[in-house]
């Protein structure tokens, strides 16, 4: 009895100490937990899904349409080197090279959710690289101009006249591209469609009755 009582008393007395010891041991255990790398940005699985999808590409025609309609949510970013940017770029584009990705002043253009950012370069490569980094970090609203400036010049600035056998849509697209080209500063030259002017409707004019000259008379 006395022994039991003693051990109970001991337990009651040392209860706090035992609890503290357990917690202390647990805290020590945390040190032993293997190092766990936390993902920076999105998960690899999601990264692959986004990267394989072609949703990020925007066609030159769609971009031209949006620029002409003065879409306020459009932000063009030129990812080519500075000297190329200075020679020529799309209207109102901002120059952000891949190496400036984390530049404090420029990163704000990429990491935001107000504008639709259209990345472009000579072809897709540089723009795609910037997009991929943005994708990793979960940036939204980033798009890539499909084919880049090369495609822009092939389609908008210098479109090819469609073959006679092509569907009507091809001709409509050609007309759109020609018109868009003019908006971007291509000289107004006679287009072939204008040469092939539609047969004019014959206007049948009813012979007007000549007004009789008021004859002087008495």
């Amino acid at each position, binding site marked *: 009895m006395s022994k039991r009582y003693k051990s109970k008393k001991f337990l009651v007395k040392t*209860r706090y100490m035992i609890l503290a010891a357990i*917690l202390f041991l647990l805290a020590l255990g945390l040190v032993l937990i293997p190092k766990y790398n936390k993902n920076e940005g999105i998960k690899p699985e999601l990264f*692959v899904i986004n990267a394989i999808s072609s949703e990020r590409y925007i066609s030159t025609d769609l971009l031209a349409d949006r620029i002409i309609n003065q879409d306020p949510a459009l932000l063009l970013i030129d990812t080519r080197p500075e000297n190329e940017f200075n*020679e020529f770029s799309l209207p109102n584009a901002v120059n952000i090279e891949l190496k400036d990705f*984390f530049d404090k002043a420029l990163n704000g253009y990429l990491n935001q959710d107000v504008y639709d950012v259209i990345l472009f370069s000579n072809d897709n490569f540089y723009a795609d690289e910037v997009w991929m*980094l943005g994708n990793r970090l979960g940036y939204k609203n980033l798009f890539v101009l499909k084919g880049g400036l090369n495609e822009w010049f092939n389609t908008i600035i210098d479109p090819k006249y469609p073959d006679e056998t092509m569907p009507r849509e091809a001709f409509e697209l050609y007309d759109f591209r020609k018109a868009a080209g003019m908006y971007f500063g291509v000289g*107004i030259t006679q287009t072939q469609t204008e040469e092939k002017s539609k047969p004019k409707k014959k206007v049948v004019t009813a012979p007007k009755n000549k007004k009789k000259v008021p004859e002087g008379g008495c």
Partner: protein
Amino acid sequence: MKELERTKRISISAVLFLLVILIGFLTFEKPQFVFEKNTGNTLEQMIKKDYILSLENLETLDSLRYAIIDIRSNFEYAKGHIKGAVNLSSDDILNTKSIEFLDDLKNSGTSIILYGKNPDNANTGWLLLYQLGYDNVKILCVETEYIDKNFRVKNAPLERPKFNFAEVMASKKSDQSEDVVKEESKKKVITSPKKKKKIPEGGC
């Protein structure tokens, strides 16, 4: 009595605390894939661009030291591929089988050379694998096509402008200015205002 109640409460809360920790440990699921490289490292490597090979570079390498991987779809691969290439389509690249294969290559010190339909596709694969920690990956900067029952591979120049953009724009603009000049150079013909014939007025 009060003292006893207090100790009871403390021990109950301590047990609950331990339980929460235990549940946390048991339900913790270790993600299968974790990016080992952060974006800063990746960006540095991307700027260096020393992972891009051309066909000529490939010929100079010892063929026992690398494995070529085709990241196009199985269908495209079946139609034609580079000799000795293994197909690991980019949709399946995170499968356990593919990862085991890639791990084997990495552990044996073999470098991995990726190619796809164009350099952009190969670059996607490179970026994924590099960030996952495979630093033995390179890409082949080629375009592949299947034309006339032939599989063709050719070097693809990266980011080469097909036009001199500024010049093209200037010439296009000059078309316009020439037109304007032409218009201006027309001699102005001064036409003397024709006298209107007066309508003979009726008079009395």
